C-alpha cells in the first residue's frame, strides 16, 4: 500500500513538472496555489470534520501582507511569502481558539463571522490594501537566477513551495496526530474518553491549515502580481469548498484534482458569454448530490472494492 501510494505521488509530481508545457503556465500556477489552498482547507474539513466558511481570511491576509512587503521593502520574494504565512498563522491563533469552541454549523457560522470582519478591515485599511482598487503591479525582484516575470520560472518556484506544503500536510495527516484528528471527527466523545484532547488537536489542525492557506495565498499573490478584495470575500471560501468536494475530501490529492477541474471549467467558461453561473452552480449541486466522494474518493472506493471486494458503505467520508 505504501509503495502504491508513493508511486501515485511520484506520478502526480511528474505530471505537475510537465504541466506548464501542456497548459498555459499561469493557469498551471493557479492550479498549484488553489490546489494547496483546497488541501489546507481539507485538513480541517475532511480530516477534522469542520466546515470552515472563512478560510479566505488566511489566504487573503497572507496575500495582502506579501504584497505590502514586496511593495514597500526590497525584501526577496520568499521572505515576503514567509511574512504572509506568518501573518496567517498569527491570525489563526485567536480565531481558531474561539471557533473551535463551537461545533457543526456553529463552527461554520463563526468562521464566516471572523472572515467578514477581516473583509471589513481590508476594505477600510485602504492604505495597505488599496481598498476596492486592490494592489496591482506588485514588483517581484529576481531571486538569483529565478525571474518571476518568466512564467516557467514562476511555475517551478511555486511547485517547489507547494510540494513543501503538500509534504507538511501529508506528514500531519499520516502521523498519529492525523489519526487522532480522524478519531475526533468520527466520534468526539469517544475520542475524548480514550484520552485525546479534541480542543488542542483541532486547534493545531486549524493553525496548520491556516498556515498552508497563507502559503498558498502568498504564492497566489506573487504569481499574479495583484491582490484585491476578492481574496477575502466569502465567495472565495465557497469556491475552495467546491474544489475540495469535487476532488474528494479526506484525501491528499483530491483537493488538487478538484482545483484542476474547477479552474479548467472556469477557464472554459471565460471564453463563453453566457450561463456561467448556471453551469457552475449545477456542477456544484450535482457533485453534492451524486458525487460526494469526489473524483479521488470515488477512485479510492473503486480501488478498495477491487482489492478487497468490500464496498464503502455509509456517508462519504
Amino acid at each position, binding site marked *: 500500500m505504501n509503495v502504491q501510494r508513493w508511486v501515485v505521488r511520484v506520478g502526480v509530481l511528474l505530471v505537475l513538472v510537465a504541466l506548464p508545457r501542456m497548459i498555459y503556465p499561469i493557469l498551471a500556477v493557479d492550479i498549484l496555489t488553489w490546489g494547496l489552498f483546497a488541501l489546507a482547507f481539507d485538513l480541517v474539513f475532511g480530516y477534522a470534520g469542520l*466546515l470552515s466558511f472563512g478560510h479566505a481570511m488566511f489566504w487573503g491576509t497572507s496575500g495582502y501582507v506579501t504584497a505590502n512587503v514586496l511593495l514597500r521593502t526590497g525584501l526577496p520574494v520568499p521572505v515576503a511569502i514567509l511574512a504572509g504565512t506568518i501573518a496567517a498563522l498569527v491570525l489563526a491563533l485567536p480565531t481558531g481558539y474561539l471557533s473551535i469552541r463551537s461545533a457543526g454549523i456553529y463552527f461554520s457560522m463563526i468562521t464566516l463571522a471572523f472572515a467578514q470582519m477581516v473583509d471589513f478591515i481590508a476594505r477600510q485599511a485602504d492604505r495597505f490594501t488599496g481598498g476596492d482598487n486592490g494592489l496591482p503591479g506588485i514588483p517581484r525582484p529576481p531571486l538569483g537566477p529565478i525571474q518571476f516575470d518568466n512564467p516557467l520560472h514562476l511555475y517551478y518556484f511555486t511547485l517547489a513551495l507547494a510540494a513543501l506544503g503538500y509534504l507538511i500536510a501529508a506528514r500531519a495527516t499520516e502521523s498519529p496526530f492525523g489519526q487522532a484528528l480522524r478519531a475526533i471527527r468520527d466520534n468526539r466523545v469517544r475520542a475524548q474518553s480514550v484520552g485525546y484532547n479534541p480542543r488542542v488537536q483541532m486547534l493545531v489542525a486549524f493553525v496548520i491549515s491556516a498556515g498552508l492557506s497563507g502559503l498558498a495565498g502568498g504564492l497566489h499573490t506573487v504569481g499574479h502580481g495583484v491582490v484585491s478584495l476578492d481574496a477575502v470575500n466569502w465567495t472565495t471560501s465557497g469556491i475552495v469548498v467546491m474544489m475540495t468536494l469535487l476532488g474528494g475530501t479526506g484525501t491528499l490529492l483530491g483537493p488538487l484534482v478538484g482545483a484542476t477541474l474547477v479552474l479548467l471549467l472556469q477557464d472554459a467558461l471565460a471564453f463563453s458569454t453566457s450561463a456561467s453561473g448556471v453551469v457552475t452552480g449545477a456542477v*456544484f449541486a450535482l457533485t453534492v448530490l451524486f458525487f460526494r466522494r469526489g473524483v479521488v474518493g470515488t477512485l479510492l472506493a473503486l480501488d478498495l472494492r477491487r482489492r478487497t471486494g468490500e464496498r464503502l458503505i455509509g456517508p462519504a467520508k
Partner: protein
Amino acid sequence: MTLLFIQVFNGLVNGAFYALLSLGLAVIFGMLRIVNFAHGALYMLGAFTTYALGERFGLGFWTSLAIAPLAVGLFGMLLERTMIRRLYDLPASYNLLLTFGLTLVIQDGVRLIYGISGQPYAPPPQLAGATNLGFIVFPTFRLFAIGISVVVCSLTWFIIERTRVGAVIRACTENPTITRAFGIDVSLWVTAVFGFGSALAGLAGVLAAPIYSVDPLMGSELIITTFAVVVIGGLGSILGSVITGYAVGVLVAIGSALYPPIANTLIFILMALVLLLRPSGLFGLQEAR
C-alpha cells in the same frame, strides 16, 4: 434627538424585512435544521414572480400578494422533495453546499431571462404616497410592510407555539422516530414546513418589490445576514429570530448613521459575540456543541 428617533423608527421598517426573512429561515433552519442557503434566492423569486404576474398577466399587487408566496412555497417543496431530502443523513454542511449550488443556478437562470439590471415595479395606488405621522412623513407602503410583517410573524409564532399543528411540527423535528410511531407522516410534514418557510421568503420578496430594486442578485447579500440573525436569535426559537430581526434592523440603522462602513459588518460582530458568549443564541433553547 428627533433625528435619532427617526432613524430608530426607520430601522424598525428594515427590521420588519429582516424579521420576515428570518422567520422563514428560522422555521427551516431552526426547526428542520436544514441549512437552506437558497433562502435569499427564494426571496428574489417572490419579487420576480410579483413582477412577472404584473408584466405578463396584468395582475396587480394584491393578487400577487396572494399568489406569489404560494408559488414560491410550491417551488420550495419541489426542491425539498427532489433534492434536499437526499442529504438528511449527512452532516448539515452538505445541504449548505447543495443549496449554495442551487442559489447560483436560480440567480443566473433569472439573469438569463431578465438581465442583470432591475425591473420596474411600483407600489399599488392604494398604498402609494406618504402618511403624516406627526413626527415624520413616511411612505405608506413601508408602514403597510411593517404591519404585514408583524401580523404574519405573530400568526406564525402562535401556530407553532400554541396550536396542535405547531406541536406536531415540533415533534417531527425534535424526535422523528417517536413521532412516526404515532402514525404521523414525518416526511410529509417536513416538506410542508419547508414549503411554508419558502412561502415566507416569497412573501418578503413580494413586499420588497415596490421598494427595492428587483434584480437577480437582490437576495445574495441578504442571505448571510439572515443566517446571522437566526443564529443570534437562537436556533429553534421563532420568537428569538423575529425579535432579533427587528433589533438588528434598528442597530444597523443607528450604525449607518454613526459610522456607515460598519453597517454591513456589525451583524457579524454581533454573531461572533453571541456564539462565543451565549452559543445557544439570545433566546435559544438548545446547546450549540
